[in-house]
């Protein structure tokens, strides 16, 4: 089957590639681009481990073809740290609040939380829980993930987050 030529931007880098139309974006990222941060959990659109950001949307990359990303701007977990290499507010929040145990869900959680905070910089706990409802975690019980996102929101907004002091 003929391959399709695509150009797109991934984490700020221009990328050109030949892909088979049936190649899922998650396979393209992991196997052709060596960006293995986004994970495959369920392969059916349920778990969110494969979540990446495409043109201002959180998308499950197991539920989209790489060819659909022609011309798109994609951010993966490899692209979320600050330009100087320090952890972003969300990454720091997950670290400080123990928002991960095995870490399998974490890249997807952080990418989803990133978009959530763009759209709603001061989410309530309920809004956080509703906003990350498409991301499953089998380890943490979500409590510390919610705190991690609250920590990041506070840091970005320059408001105090009391948990962080403990």
């Amino acid at each position: 089957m003929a391959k399709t030529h695509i150009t797109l931007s991934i984490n700020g880098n221009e990328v050109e590639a030949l892909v088979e139309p049936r190649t899922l974006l998650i396979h393209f990222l992991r196997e052709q681009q060596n960006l293995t941060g986004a994970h495959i959990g369920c392969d059916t659109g349920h778990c969110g481990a494969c979540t990446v950001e495409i043109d201002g949307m959180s998308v499950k990359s197991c539920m989209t073809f790489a060819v659909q990303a022609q011309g798109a701007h994609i951010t993966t977990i490899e692209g979320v740290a600050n330009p100087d290499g320090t952890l972003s507010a969300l990454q720091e929040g997950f670290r400080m609040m123990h928002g991960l145990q095995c870490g399998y869900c974490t890249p997807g959680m952080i990418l989803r939380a990133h978009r959530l905070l763009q759209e709603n910089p001061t989410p309530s706990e309920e809004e956080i829980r509703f906003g990350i409802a498409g991301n499953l975690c089998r380890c943490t019980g979500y409590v510390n993930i919610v705190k991690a996102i609250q920590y990041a929101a506070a840091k970005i907004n320059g408001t105090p987050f009391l948990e962080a002091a403990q």
Partner: protein
Amino acid sequence: MIPGTFEYYRPDSVASVVALLAKLGDDARPLAGGQSLIAMMKTRLASPEHLIDLSAIAELHGIREQGNDIIIGAMTTQHELIASELLAKYLPIIRETSLVIADPQIRYKGTLGGNVANGDPGNDMPALMQCLDASYQLVGPKGEREVAARAFYNGAYDTALQADEIVSAVRIGKPVAGHGYGYEKLKRKIGDYATAAAAVMITMSVATCTSASIGLTNVSETPLWAEAAGKALVGTQLDEASIAKAVAAAEAITNPASDMRGPAEYRTKMAGIMLRRALERAKSRAHG
């Protein structure tokens, strides 16, 4: 799970899609958000040889007012439906329904056109569209035609849409201001299809119900417009006896499958309970 091979097309006009569908025949399928189709392709329930991506067609996007109607382009996503101020003003039930579909990621990609054209009885929009008496605008090689949502669904994955046609838009008459509405869905978890769900639109004149329309999701091979149940409410004060009559009429037309969401009898009863709850909320919101 890797889908079968196919050729990919991304035309930029409805005319080119129609020309491609006419040329490629039954082996071609439109691709909207892909949130149902890609899942089906992975399990090989669908193996189209040609996929025509509708995302680059500007005329299929957006929500606008046209006289007494609201026109929603087929490629408008569930996320956009939730954010729309126009819909918040005229048809807030669309937002309420969109919010209980799938999860945030799926809603960024999943479209109204894909949801109504899919033909899966689990989809939430079809019963809502029947409740609202929406029409689907279809475009094919012979031009345009319009089919009422209430006449569109023949069976599971069997609709009035021909293989060489696409849904270009959904047209919905503006309901009267002050109407009451509610969409209630029982699901096992966020991101699950309905065990049963009910859409309700009513108008009240002081304490009397002057119109009522009811749609039911996932309790038959097709979405259901519960016409008799709606009629049972008109002219009443929405008192317990009238509600019980409407619920019985709605339950009577259900024919759900027994599956992992529960035995058929249970799902029928849940349809009745969702209807009661949606009706209660609609009543509390109506003022007329």
